[in-house]
């Protein structure tokens, strides 16, 4: 049997960059890179739904999550302090297929960087990461030890290349690509890689249940409608109908 919601105790919850928070939860968490948890930081019925958040890292059972302040849910979670509790359901979803060899690129946009520390840790070292941000870069310090190169693009030029991250990256140099970020960015990545290199994309969707029963999160794939929370969130680029 899978676990239902269980409590995690907050060990730390810090704003590591404007509007970007990192929370670490004590417990006995498990999961593979690319999987996610549904999170509730409230007991009442408003907000009603839990929020899907990727595993940013798991280290001796402690779960790290990286989240961006968006709306009411993340706002409430950002106010929690050490010792407070979160409810978590997971790990959910399929996670990334881990490849053991070859040249690998990770392409992220914004908070899409969240699952990449745990991914990078579980890949061989021959990984280049390309990360785009609107303005400030974040979380890359933690990823740096596990990759060969870090390449940054910011829309306003604050750090690294001024422009889109997709302008930095050459598909033909790689044997495999992992990507996570806003759908339009991932669509560009998928297009760029088409016929050149396989891509695994962690897709976005609004979720109600997170466990495959509401059909709220489905996307169109070459196999028909599939659930981001169940068949995904990671899909092969060529399966995603753009």
């Amino acid at each position, binding site marked *: 049997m899978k676990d239902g919601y269980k409590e995690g105790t907050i060990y730390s919850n810090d704003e590591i960059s404007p509007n970007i928070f990192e929370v670490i939860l004590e417990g006995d968490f498990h999961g593979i890179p690319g999987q996610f948890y549904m999170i509730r930081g409230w007991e009442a019925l408003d907000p*009603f739904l839990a929020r899907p958040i990727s595993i940013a890292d798991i280290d001796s059972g402690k779960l790290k999550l990286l989240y961006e302040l968006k709306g009411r849910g993340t706002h409430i979670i950002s106010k929690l302090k050490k010792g407070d509790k979160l409810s978590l359901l997971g790990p959910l979803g399929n996670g990334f297929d881990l490849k053991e060899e070859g040249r690998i690129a990770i392409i992220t946009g914004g908070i899409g960087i969240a699952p990449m520390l745990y991914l990078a840790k579980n890949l061989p070292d021959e990984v280049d990461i390309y990360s785009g941000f609107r303005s400030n870069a974040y979380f890359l310090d933690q990823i740096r030890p596990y990759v060969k190169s870090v390449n940054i693009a910011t829309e306003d030029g604050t750090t690294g290349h001024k422009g889109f991250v997709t302008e930095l990256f050459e598909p033909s140099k790689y044997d495999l690509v992992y990507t996570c970020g806003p759908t339009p960015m991932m669509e560009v990545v998928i297009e760029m890689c088409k016929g050149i290199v396989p891509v695994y994309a962690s897709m976005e969707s609004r979720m109600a249940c997170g466990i495959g029963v509401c059909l709220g999160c489905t996307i169109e794939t070459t196999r028909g409608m599939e659930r981001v929370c169940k068949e995904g969130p990671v899909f092969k680029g060529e399966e995603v109908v753009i």
Partner: protein
Amino acid sequence: MTKVKILGVELKNPVIAASGTFGFGKEFDEFFSIDKLGGICSKGLTLNKSNGNKGIRIYETPAGLMNSIGLQNPGVEGFIRDELPFLQGKDTVIFANLGGHSLDEYLEGIELLNDTSVDFIELNISCPNVKEGGMAFGIKCNTAESVVKEAKKVSKKPMIVKLSPNAENIQEMAYTCVESGADGISLVNTFNALAIDIYNRRPVFNNITAGLSGPCIKPIALRMVYEVSKVVDVPILGIGGITRAEDAIEYIMAGATAVQVGSGNFIKPDITLDIIAGIEEFMEREGIKSLEEIRGII
């Protein structure tokens, strides 16, 4: 103790998983044994497989959510072939929720279900998220009347008709459905509702409106169940915003024979077990031997 009987079929307890919020039971069976439930309603089936709606399908609202899934489902035959065998293996009562875009679709669907082991057909004349048919059948009594009558002629299964809270007059609608042959009534399906993405200046949902469910609707749905219980004599399944045992007990006191839990399943996979346990506790504490003692007591 918590046993209830619906049209001769015994349910272990009055807690049924509502259509569209429980898949076909498989995912939940990974979290707990779904044998523990009084019953399970299938996702809304249509005669043919359907991909459902495009665009955003889920939108959270205060103490609720809106959905526009649009009856994505494997079709009646797909259900019978791929989903029913699993459900049959379970010790719980099965409701096949059947939607349709036209009278013929309903009738063909019923005929296919007639020869299966499902315990009940739940005739869904109340889905707000399909372009044709669906809820359109559940607004005015005369349209409902013809669908229910024809469906009843064809159905070999006990037939529960699932009402829309958008019906013009819920009492007349329930009465009409029962007069037309409904063996039971379930209510409510979702409320027709609107959300607007003010930054993009357009409705959130491609179909403009979508269906509202969750605790937010409970007080209205409970009123409707109460009103319907005053005019029909068939079993009523109360639905709408149930997340706690107390909610379920309110429905029973308002006249429901059993209840269905919908959106609540999304916020806690085993919420139905909590509700069942809570009902048992309440009965013990209050010295209630059978739910019949409190049904419709208010």
